């Protein structure tokens, strides 16, 4: 068969083209997210402004909030207004306390990022060796132990684990504080002491999930022809494992890490509530309880955008790791 030609494209570097397509795709999804987020408020049965005011309702407050939040203008105008301001970083103001949403979000972001970061690091430190080891010893006792443990880990509610950890390490043993947060750059030691328990809570559950994925990814790779070729060359077992099996599992591992990081960003809500962690999750929770729609919208948008960003980074890493994408 003859190749007729490539579609016209400015840059011929395959990596750039790959990333450009992924970026375009992310932007499309982000717009979709924007639509959903915007629709959130307007799908509410009843009047969102009235609900938000709740017991503080007075006709004047109602009118004031309504015009301040722009809810008195036609829907289409509101949507483009929202999209426009979102692009410039203005996400409106909180219904509850009038603070600009963007500022509030940025204040709370570092705490959540700390937690997610520590969580994923703990998860990788456990899941990578456990998943690989378990796959390489498939069918044997050590594999069974890992599988059973990870099954348990996947079945435990994270808030329960958090409470139990607090009960044990904080309330009973008094090794660690029960709640609270210290910013990293102000007080590194304090940061560490405070982030351990919540980080473990997030990380252990994530570790259980990732161990299972990594195990099955390594098993799949181990069954491939080139692993047999490697053995047929008489290479030492460690080389076969590391250079052939594990290295080719890097791509699925990257995928699951990305997915898991994104899941953590969402699941972090409950852990933040348990540990009174001043992050985005707790912010969203409070906002939901108070029907503070602009904050909810802003937080959801931010988290979705972060998720897409993580995916883009994972894609970029694919291009680095996989020569099939680098050189097509």
């Amino acid at each position, binding site marked *: *068969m003859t190749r007729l030609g490539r579609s016209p494209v400015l840059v011929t570097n395959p990596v750039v083209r790959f990333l450009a397509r992924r970026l375009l795709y992310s932007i499309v999804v982000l717009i979709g997210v924007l639509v959903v987020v915007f629709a959130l408020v307007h799908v509410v049965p009843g009047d969102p402004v009235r609900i938000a005011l709740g017991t503080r309702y007075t006709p004047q407050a109602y009118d004031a909030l309504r015009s301040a939040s722009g809810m008195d203008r036609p829907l289409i105008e509101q949507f483009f207004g929202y999209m426009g301001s979102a692009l410039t970083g203005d996400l409106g103001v909180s219904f509850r306390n009038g603070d600009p949403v963007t500022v509030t979000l940025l204040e709370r972001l570092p705490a959540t990022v700390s937690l997610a970061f520590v969580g994923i690091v703990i998860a990788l430190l456990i899941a990578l060796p456990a998943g690989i080891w378990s796959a390489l010893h498939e069918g044997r006792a050590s594999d069974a132990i890992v599988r059973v443990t990870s099954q348990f880990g996947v079945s435990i509610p994270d808030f329960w684990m958090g409470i139990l950890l607090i009960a044990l390490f904080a309330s009973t043993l008094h090794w660690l504080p029960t709640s609270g947060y210290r910013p990293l750059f102000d007080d590194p030691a304090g940061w560490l002491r405070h982030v351990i328990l919540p980080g473990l809570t997030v990380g252990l559950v994530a570790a259980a999930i990732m161990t299972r994925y990594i195990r099955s990814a390594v098993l799949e790779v181990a069954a491939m022809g080139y692993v047999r070729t490697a053995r047929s060359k008489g290479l030492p077992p460690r080389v076969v494992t590391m250079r052939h099996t594990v290295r080719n599992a890097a791509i699925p591992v990257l995928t699951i890490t990305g997915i898991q990081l994104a899941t953590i960003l969402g699941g972090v809500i409950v852990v933040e509530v348990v540990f009174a962690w001043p992050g985005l999750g707790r912010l969203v929770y409070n906002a939901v309880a108070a029907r503070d729609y602009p904050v909810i919208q802003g937080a959801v948008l931010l988290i979705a955008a972060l998720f897409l960003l993580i995916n883009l980074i994972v894609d970029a890493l694919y291009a680095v790791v996989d020569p099939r994408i680098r050189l097509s």
Partner: protein
Amino acid sequence: MADPVLGVRDLRVRIGRREIVRGISFDVARDQTLGIVGESGSGKSMTVLAATGLLDAPGAVISGTSTLAGAADSAPAQLVGASARLLREVHGGRIGFVFQDPGTSLNPLLTVERQITESLEAHRNMTRQQARGRALELLEAVGLPQPQTRLNSYPHQLSGGQRQRVMIAIALACDPELLIADEPTTSLDVTTQAQIIDLVRDLQRDFGTAVVWISHDLGVIGQVADDVTVLQDGQAVEQAPVLDVFDNPQQPYTRELLNARPLIGAPGPPPADSEAPVLLRVEGLDVRFPVTTPVGRSTVHAVKDLSFQIRHGTTLGLVGESGSGKSTVAASLTGLVKPDAGAASLDGLGVRGAAVKALRRRISLVFQDPFSSLNPRTRAGAAIGEPLWVHRLAKGKQARQKRVAELLELVGLPAAFASRYPHELSGGQRQRVSIARALATEPDLLILDESTASLDVSVQARVLDLLADLQRELNLTYLFIGHDLAVIQRMSHDVLVMRDGEAVEYRPAAQLFESPEQDYTRALLAAVPPARPRSALPG
């Protein structure tokens, strides 16, 4: 006679309660090639892997002896039950391996150079520079074009034939005494296969390596082997020098294998009625496909302005290597693919567009893979009955069952098979069910797309006989698509050779095979392993 490089005695492999390799013995003489031939399930791969200590099946119990002759400074090594350390020294260092599928046998993330040098690293003390030099030497020796550039290539940038050359280079990197080649050319085109066969022969001559060549294809074995071992059901049925096996087969199984081979020069189908009207006329068929890769889109021009016709009761053999576009032609005629241009007519009625369903009745399709051609969750009877139901050809369940039984009988299967699921049938039986299903609508045209390519040689022979009989009895018209020229010759009245989407040569079969006009056709014919072993032919 010098002692053999590898001496295997009474090798047995048992997995669970089944003994798969049942007491096989053979010798591999120095500088010679031992051909091991057998159909699927004969245990040929398992035998050789077990004999060289590379078998990795959980729960496998290996017994017997496999002795690798001593090298200049070492004693003979016993490979069955050997220590992991000894096996690591032997693998790659004294025995090199080439496997069947070049697509998955090379690590996609490592360069060609790395995959060669890691072998050198493991067995020789070489600096990076020296190893690189040796890798370059090897790539040149295996005939890889532009070896300097190829050192830094990744497997996905090479063609199947090129990858197989790289595998051979890797296998020979440390100058082993023995090369094990397990179906090395089975996944390759016939012309590439011929090149690889020549390559291995030249390398054997230059480096003095003994070779064990495993294949299901007797023709290939005839080309490469000095001695032959025929395996059936885990046992060595016949072992003799190649000429003896081909000219004086002692065992009935060997004779069966030899007779089942389709050969160029064997008689074709009985002559058809030259006055028969044209059934299918295709003009200017043109098909293009968009192709999406992670980095962008491009277009593949699969079929370029193709025209041909088939008369009632005859077979047109459509032959080409992979990528020639032959399967796309079938897909266009059956409506699976929309052509970009061209017209086709069946008895004068247009094939595209109107009255599609009526047309579907008249054209039937049989695919290559016997297993995935049948819904694994449907019984054979239901599969055959489906076209009857769709086109309302039999009223009511009774009538359908009766017709299904008739069709099963037509293809040589007992009526009881209607209640069997595909996994309860052998490959040949499944293919017969597919044929029965294709015949259910009493079609005018039967398209057979590589329909026997996945079958064992003996099974293939029987299915081809069946198809020939059916053509004669029912005056069927076939479009027979394949890559095996001998099979094409056996079945076809006319032949169309395709390459890169274009018709290269289109003539009556007898003429084409006797005096091919185009170079490409000549090259294809020349690449087909001849009927007699190479050593029997002059030159």
